[in-house]
C-alpha cells in the first residue's frame, strides 16, 4: 500500500490523461455489460409486472395459445370443483386514433365476476353504472380508461372517444377512470376495460374467448386446481400461472439475450486490451523506476503486487464509472428492445423503470476489477522480472523477441487446431462455444505478429506517400509492437463484432427478402389492423367470399395465424388454403417432395413446418408430430420442410380445414388477394375500402407496402449493429489516443530531431496523423479478417441455438466499406490532440539526454 502511495500515485498524477483513457477502457466494457443486461432485465421486469398487474388476483389462466377457444369452455372451468371464480377475458390491441398515443390494449372482461379478480380502483366514475355491472354490460359502448391515458388526452367520465375496432371506428363512452396504479399502470396506462361480449363483437371474435382467469377455492392448492383443469380440458389447453406468460416472453427474447452476451464478452475483451496496453506501456516507461526499486531491495513479487494493485484500483474506479454509464445506457437500450417486443402485445412494452439487481451490479464490479487484474497479469509479471542493471540502461525494450513470437505462433497453431476440431467434429454445445472462444484467443495471439507484418508491409506505401513522415510513422509502429498491437487488437475485436453482426443482419435480410419475394406475392393484403403483426382483430370467414365477388379480384386466400405452444415453445400456426397456395406461391422444400407435400397438406394428411422449427426441434420430413388443440390432438406426419419466416421460433403450416376442425375457429387475420390482369391495385384497393366503409375496419396494403413493413421490422432487430459501430468508433479513438500519447512521449527525441533538421509543424503533425491512420488501417484489416471468422460462428449460433435459420455466409462488404472511412476518420480525429501536443513540445528538452 505504501508503494502504491509513494510510487503509483505520483505516476497517476503525472499522467492524468492516460490514466483517464485507461480507466475508460474498463468503463466501456462494464457499461456495455451492465447496460445491455440491465436493459434486458428491465424489459422482462416491465413485461412481468404488466402481466402481474393485468392478472390481478388471478391464480391460474386457461388459454390455447393466441388462438382463443369456444366460450363453452368457460362452463367446464366454472364447473371444476377446485375453482372458486373463473372469468373470461379477451385482449385486443386497437388503434387509439390519437396522434402520438399509439395502440391501446383493451381487456374485455365479464364485469359480473371480474371485480373479484381485478381491482379497478376507480378515481372517477359514473358510479351508478360501474356499481351495477349489468348496466355497464347493457351499454355496449361503455369503456373504462386509466387516469394516465385520460389525462394525456383530456378525457373525463362521460367523454366520448373513438377506437378502431374490427367494425371500423366506433364511439365509446368513458364510464370510469382507474387510478394510475396496479392494473391501470400496465403499458404506461395505454389500457382500457370493456365488457367481454361487446368486445367479442367489436373485435370480430365470434363466440370465443382468449383466456379464462380464475381463482381457486380456499384450501385448494394451485397445483391441485391445475391438475383438475388439465384433466377436464385436455392437452389443447394451457393451464398456467400468470407468470408463465413472462417465461414465454423470455423464450422469445432469448435470441436477444445471446447477442447481448456475445456483445458484452467482446466489450470486456476490448476493455481488457486497453488495460493491457496501458500497463504494458507503463512497465516499459517505468523501467528505470522499477530498476531503482529493485536495486533498493524491492522483491519481484512486491513489484508484481504493486502493478496488480494499481490495476485493481483502476478496475474498481472504471467499474464504478461503468456501472453509472451502463445504467444510463440501459434506459435507451430498453426503449429500443421494448419497441421491438411490442409485437407480443401490440402495445409498446415500455420499461419505465430500470430494473437492476444487486447481483448483476456486483457481478459487473467483480468482472470489471477481475478483467483489469487479468489484463495486468502479463505486464506485472514482466515488471517483476525486470533486471535492475539492464533497467537503468538506455535501449530498446519494446521489441518482441523472436522467442516470444515463436511461442505465440506455436500456441496459436495448437489452439487453432483444437478450435477447428471443436467445429469440425459435431459435438455438444459447450464444445462448440469453447471452439469459438479459442478461435478468438488464436486471433488475439496472432494479432501482434500480424500487426508487425502488416506494419512492415505498409511501410513502402507510407514512404511512397510521404518519404519522411510516412516512413517514420510506419517505423514507429514497427519499433513498438506492444504499444501498437494492443490498440490494434482492441480495434480488431470491436470491428470483428460489428462485421459479424452486420453480416448476420445482411444474411437474415437476404433470406427474409428471398422468402418475401417467393411467398408474399399477392397483389394486395387485407388486414383488420394497420399493424400487420397485431393478430387480435379478425375478420369473419364470410368476408372472403364477399371479397372474391368484387370486380378485379381473381383469387382470395384466407390466412389465419396465431402463436400456440408447441413442445413448450411458442410457434406460429399458419392456416390457409394450401391447394391455392401451391398454385400461387409454391416453395422449394428443404426436405420433402415439392408437389406431394402440398397435396398431402391440402388433403389434411400432413403438415409443413418451417426450416428453423425443424432445426430447433430436431424434426425431419416424415416424422409424425402431435399438436395439442382445443378440440383434440392433431397427429400428422411432416409432409415437407420449407423456408418460412412467419415467426422467429418457427411455424407450422396447415390447411385451413384442419385448423377449423381442431380450433373451431374460421376467423381470418389476413386475406391475400390476387388481381386479374386488367385490374389495378389502386382501383381494387379503393373498391374494398368503400365496400366496408363504416362497417369494418379494413386496411389494404399493397405488396410493396407489406414488404417494406417486414423489412423495416427486420431492420429494427439489427439496430443493435449501430450501437456496436458507435462502440467501435469509441474504441478506435480511445485506443489510438492512448497509443499516440505514449508514442509521442517515446518519440520525443525523434520528433525533436525532425524539427531541428527542418521539419515544419505541418510535417510533424502529418507523421502523427499517418501513424494513427496506420493503426486504424491495421485494425480494419485484422478486424475484417476476424470478423469474417466471427460471422461464421455467429451464423452457426443462430442456426444451432437461436432461430434455427440457416443463413448464407455473405461477408458484409457494404458495411466494411462504410466502416473504412468511419474508422480512418475516427483515427484521424484521435490523432489531432496528440499531434498538437507533439508540435508544442520544447525542442531543447526533446533533444536533451537524461
Amino acid at each position, binding site marked *: 500500500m505504501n508503494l502504491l502511495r509513494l510510487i503509483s500515485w505520483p505516476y497517476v498524477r503525472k499522467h492524468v490523461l492516460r490514466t483517464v483513457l485507461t480507466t475508460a477502457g474498463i468503463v466501456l466494457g462494464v457499461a456495455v455489460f451492465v447496460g445491455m443486461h440491465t436493459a434486458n432485465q428491465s424489459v422482462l421486469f416491465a413485461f412481468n409486472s404488466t402481466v402481474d398487474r393485468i392478472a390481478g388476483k388471478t391464480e391460474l389462466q386457461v388459454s390455447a395459445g393466441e388462438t382463443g377457444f369456444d366460450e363453452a369452455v368457460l362452463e367446464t372451468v366454472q364447473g371444476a370443483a377446485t375453482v372458486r371464480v373463473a372469468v373470461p377475458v379477451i385482449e385486443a390491441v386497437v388503434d387509439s386514433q390519437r396522434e402520438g398515443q399509439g395502440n391501446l390494449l383493451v381487456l374485455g372482461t365479464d364485469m359480473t365476476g371480474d371485480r373479484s379478480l381485478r381491482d379497478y380502483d376507480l378515481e372517477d366514475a359514473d358510479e351508478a353504472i360501474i356499481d351495477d355491472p349489468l348496466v355497464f354490460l347493457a351499454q355496449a359502448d361503455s369503456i373504462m380508461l386509466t387516469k394516465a391515458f385520460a389525462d394525456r388526452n383530456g378525457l373525463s367520465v362521460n367523454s366520448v372517444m373513438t377506437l378502431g375496432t374490427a367494425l371500423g371506428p366506433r364511439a365509446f363512452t368513458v364510464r370510469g377512470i382507474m387510478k394510475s396504479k396496479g392494473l391501470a399502470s400496465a403499458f404506461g396506462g395505454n389500457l382500457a376495460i370493456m365488457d367481454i361480449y361487446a368486445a367479442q363483437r367489436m373485435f370480430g371474435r365470434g363466440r370465443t374467448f382468449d383466456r379464462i382467469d380464475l381463482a381457486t377455492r380456499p384450501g385448494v392448492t394451485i397445483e391441485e386446481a391445475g391438475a383438475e383443469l388439465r384433466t377436464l380440458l385436455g392437452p389443447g389447453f394451457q393451464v398456467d400461472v400468470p407468470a408463465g406468460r413472462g417465461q414465454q416472453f423470455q423464450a422469445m427474447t432469448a435470441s436477444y439475450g445471446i447477442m447481448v452476451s456475445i456483445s458484452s464478452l467482446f466489450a470486456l475483451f476490448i476493455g481488457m486490451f486497453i488495460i493491457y496496453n496501458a500497463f504494458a506501456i507503463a512497465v516499459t516507461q517505468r523501467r528505470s523506476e522499477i530498476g531503482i526499486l529493485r536495486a533498493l531491495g524491492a522483491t519481484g513479487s512486491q513489484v508484481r503486487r504493486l502493478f496488480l494493485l494499481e490495476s485493481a484500483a483502476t478496475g474498481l474506479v472504471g467499474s464504478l464509472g461503468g456501472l453509472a454509464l451502463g445504467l444510463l445506457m440501459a434506459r435507451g437500450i430498453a426503449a429500443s428492445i421494448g419497441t421491438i417486443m411490442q409485437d407480443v402485445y401490440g402495445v409498446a412494452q415500455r420499461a419505465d423503470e430500470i430494473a437492476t439487481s444487486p447481483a448483476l451490479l456486483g457481478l459487473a464490479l467483480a468482472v470489471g476489477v477481475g478483467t483489469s487484474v487479468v489484463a495486468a497479469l502479463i505486464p506485472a509479471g514482466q515488471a517483476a522480472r525486470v533486471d535492475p542493471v539492464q533497467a537503468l540502461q538506455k535501449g530498446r525494450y519494446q521489441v518482441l523477441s523472436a522467442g516470444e513470437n515463436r511461442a505465440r505462433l506455436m500456441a496459436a497453431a495448437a489452439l487453432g487446431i483444437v478450435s477447428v476440431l471443436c467445429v469440425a467434429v459435431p459435438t455438444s454445445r459447450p464444445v462448440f462455444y469453447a471452439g469459438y472462444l479459442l478461435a478468438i484467443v488464436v486471433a488475439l495471439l496472432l494479432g501482434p505478429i500480424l500487426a508487425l507484418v502488416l506494419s512492415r508491409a505498409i511501410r513502402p506505401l507510407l514512404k511512397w506517400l510521404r518519404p519522411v513522415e510516412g516512413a*517514420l510513422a510506419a517505423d514507429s509502429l514497427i519499433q513498438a509492437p506492444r504499444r501498437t498491437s494492443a490498440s490494434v487488437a482492441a480495434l480488431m475485436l470491436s470491428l470483428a463484432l460489428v462485421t459479424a453482426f452486420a453480416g448476420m443482419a445482411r444474411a437474415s435480410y437476404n433470406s427474409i427478402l428471398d422468402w418475401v419475394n417467393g411467398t408474399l406475392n399477392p397483389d394486395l393484403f387485407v388486414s383488420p389492423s394497420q399493424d400487420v403483426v397485431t393478430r387480435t382483430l379478425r375478420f369473419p370467414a364470410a368476408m372472403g367470399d364477399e371479397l372474391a365477388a368484387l370486380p378485379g379480384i381473381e383469387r382470395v386466400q384466407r390466412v389465419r395465424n396465431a402463436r400456440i405452444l408447441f413442445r413448450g415453445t411458442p410457434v406460429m400456426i399458419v392456416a390457409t388454403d394450401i391447394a391455392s397456395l401451391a398454385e400461387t406461391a409454391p416453395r422449394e422444400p428443404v426436405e420433402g417432395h415439392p408437389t406431394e407435400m402440398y397435396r398431402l397438406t391440402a388433403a389434411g394428411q400432413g403438415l409443413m413446418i418451417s426450416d428453423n422449427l425443424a432445426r430447433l426441434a430436431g424434426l425431419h420430413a416424415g416424422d409424425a408430430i402431435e399438436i395439442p388443440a382445443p378440440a383434440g390432438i392433431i397427429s400428422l406426419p411432416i409432409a415437407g420442410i420449407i423456408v418460412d419466416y412467419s415467426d422467429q421460433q418457427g411455424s407450422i403450416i396447415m390447411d385451413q380445414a384442419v385448423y377449423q376442425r381442431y380450433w373451431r375457429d374460421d376467423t381470418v387475420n389476413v386475406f391475400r388477394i390476387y388481381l386479374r390482369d386488367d385490374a389495378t391495385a389502386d382501383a381494387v384497393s379503393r373498391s374494398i375500402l368503400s365496400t366496408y366503409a363504416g362497417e369494418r375496419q379494413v386496411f389494404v396494403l399493397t405488396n410493396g407496402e407489406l414488404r417494406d413493413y417486414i423489412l423495416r421490422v427486420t431492420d429494427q432487430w439489427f439496430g443493435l449493429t449501430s450501437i456496436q459501430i458507435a462502440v467501435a468508433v469509441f474504441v478506435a479513438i480511445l485506443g489510438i489516443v492512448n497509443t499516440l500519447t505514449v508514442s509521442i512521449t517515446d518519440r520525443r527525441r525523434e520528433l525533436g530531431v525532425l524539427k*531541428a533538421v*527542418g521539419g*515544419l*509543424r505541418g510535417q510533424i503533425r502529418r507523421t502523427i496523423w499517418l501513424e494513427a491512420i496506420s493503426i486504424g488501417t491495421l485494425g480494419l484489416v485484422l478486424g475484417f479478417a476476424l470478423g469474417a471468422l466471427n460471422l461464421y460462428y455467429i451464423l452457426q449460433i443462430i442456426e444451432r441455438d437461436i432461430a434455427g435459420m440457416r443463413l448464407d455466409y455473405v461477408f458484409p462488404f457494404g458495411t466494411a466499406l462504410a466502416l473504412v472511412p468511419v474508422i480512418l476518420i475516427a483515427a484521424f480525429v484521435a490523432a489531432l490532440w496528440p499531434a498538437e501536443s507533439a508540435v508544442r513540445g520544447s*525542442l531543447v528538452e526533446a533533444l536533451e539526454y537524461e
Partner: protein
Amino acid sequence: MIDLDRVTRQFEGKRNVTALREVSLTIAKGDLVSIVGPSGSGKSTLLNLMGGLDRPTTGSVAIDGESLANLGDDGLTRVRRDKIGFIFQFFNLLPTLSCLENVGLPLHLRGWARRKVHERAIELLQLVQLGHRVHHLPEELSGGERQRVAIARALSIYPPILLADEPTGNLDTRTGGDILALIDDLHRRLGATVVIVTHDLQVAERCQRTITLRDGGIEQDVRR
C-alpha cells in the same frame, strides 16, 4: 553571419536559473569558432540560441542579418532548414532510417524530388567516406561512422552555418580526431561558418577563434 545582442536566457522553475547573461557576440561568415567552458557555463544554451532551437529571454539573435525574435515556430524551422546544419554529441540519427534516409531527411523535408535527394545523399555519404554503408541502419555502425552520417546529414543542404555540440564527446580520441579533421576539411572546402561547442581544449585550439564561457558570460574571446 551570427549576431547576438545582449542575450539572456533564464530557465524558470522552483528556482530560476540564468544560463546566459547579457551575452553579445558576432561570428563572421566562414569563421571556425569553438566555444569552451566548464559544465553549466551556458555553452549548449548559447549554441541552441544560435541555431534557433531556443529563444532568448531577453536580447536578440540574428542569423545572416535576419532577426529570429519575430519569427514563429515554422519561421524558425525554415531558418534552421535553409541555413543551419546541426551535429549533436549523441548523433541523433533516427534509428529506424538507413544512412541514406537519415542524410536525405532534411532534403525531403524541404520537398526535394526523390531522385535528387538520393543523388545528394549518396554524394554526401561518399564525401564522409561511407559510400559502402548507405543502406545500413545506425545501430550497425560504429560511433565514428554514426557521427560521419550525422555530419553528412548536417551538410545535406550545404548550409552556410554548421553548429556542432560536442561532436567528438562520445568518441574515442582517434575517431574524434578523424571527425575533427573531416569538419576542418569541410569548413575549408565548403566555406561554411562553423561553431563547435567542446570540452576538449585540443579541439578548441584547432579553431580560428575560441570563446570561453563561465557562469553564463563570456570570460575570454581568443582569435588565432
